[in-house]
């Protein structure tokens, strides 16, 4: 069985306990929840938007939305992490809508605000090559249509299950599967155009 089709069983009790304390105004409970999920939300936002500054804004907005209405999260509907990614996804889309050039691959290539950890650290020459290739790969990802990018980032890059991706995007698992397949194909096409896949650029054919 595909391990991505089901959510890994995990003990949600500690998280629910933190949520309960948080709703009573316990700041330390909020801090603990934040530390558990901040990196995953930020990574998702960074991979989705391709910009560190926008990803930081998106992460902050997602948690602020949670602070404002913590009752919005319903544990019966899935994991807290996937729910937060869903909120971050909405803000990322909003950011992309407000700033159309945020997902423009040419702008992303020129984005020097990305953290060092985003590229491989090898020799200076290797670093230059890897740096350039990492930029190109990110640009290729940014060029994938947003609704395909959602599931591509969630499932392939952030280790979320199909069920969690479905929860975050508000779609069913079958749609996650089909979007993932198309998202991979679009990503491959973009990589191919940049010469990062073997062979000549892939061409669309009409059915």
């Amino acid at each position, binding site marked *: 069985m595909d391990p991505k089709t089901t959510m890994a069983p995990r003990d949600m009790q500690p998280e629910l306990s933190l949520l309960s304390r948080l709703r009573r*105004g316990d700041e330390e409970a909020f*801090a603990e929840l934040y530390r558990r999920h901040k990196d995953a939300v*930020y*990574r998702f936002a960074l991979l989705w938007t391709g910009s560190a500054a926008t990803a930081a804004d998106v992460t902050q907005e997602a948690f602020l939305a949670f602070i404002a209405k913590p009752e919005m999260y319903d544990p019966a509907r899935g994991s807290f992490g996937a729910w937060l990614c869903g909120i971050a996804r909405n803000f990322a889309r909003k950011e992309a809508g407000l700033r159309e050039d945020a997902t423009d691959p040419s702008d992303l290539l020129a984005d020097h605000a990305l953290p060092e*950890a*985003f590229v491989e650290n090898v020799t200076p020459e290797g670093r230059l090559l890897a740096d350039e*290739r*990492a930029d190109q790969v990110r640009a290729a990802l940014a060029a994938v249509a947003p609704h395909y990018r959602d599931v591509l980032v969630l499932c392939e890059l952030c280790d979320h299950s199909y069920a969690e991706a479905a929860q975050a995007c508000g779609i069913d698992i079958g749609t996650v599967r089909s979007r993932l397949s198309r998202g*991979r194909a679009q990503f491959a096409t973009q990589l191919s155009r940049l010469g*990062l896949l073997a062979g000549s650029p892939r061409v669309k054919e009409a059915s």
Partner: protein
Amino acid sequence: MNTPQMPPLSAVEESRLEDRLAELRSASHAIEAPTAIEAKLRQAFRAKARRESSRPRLWWMPPFALVATVAAVSWIARGPTDLPVPVAAPVQASLDDAGPFLALRPLSRIALEPSATIVRTEFPRAYLAQLGLPVAPERAGEPVQAELLYSADGEALAVRLIDPN
């Protein structure tokens, strides 16, 4: 409409695609959210907690409003309405003792009337409905004999049916 479809990936392309995804995945695993965010969020959390603690606790308002509404509705449904009430003591002696007057205005208003006049009249039974009295639809067109108590300025204060049947 034709939907553009991609040709399937070759084994080499598939392998390269997996490589690129793996590179991105491994590069992004080391990424952490900027530390400055936590301080801002904690500040927002504290501000919200302060707002909530300073706000008067009004949790009891909705149930109280519900109970009050139910009580008011049931009182209106069961209690006396605007139906005319019998006048215990008519202002002036009537010509005969046909029955009690039904007040059409508040009793306090009638009591203050210095020179009320009783006038015997006849009107269609349907008019009784306007005075708040029950009228059978099939008899609405029949005439009915009544005495009306008028104020000095011609306002109808009370009515008494001579032939209530």
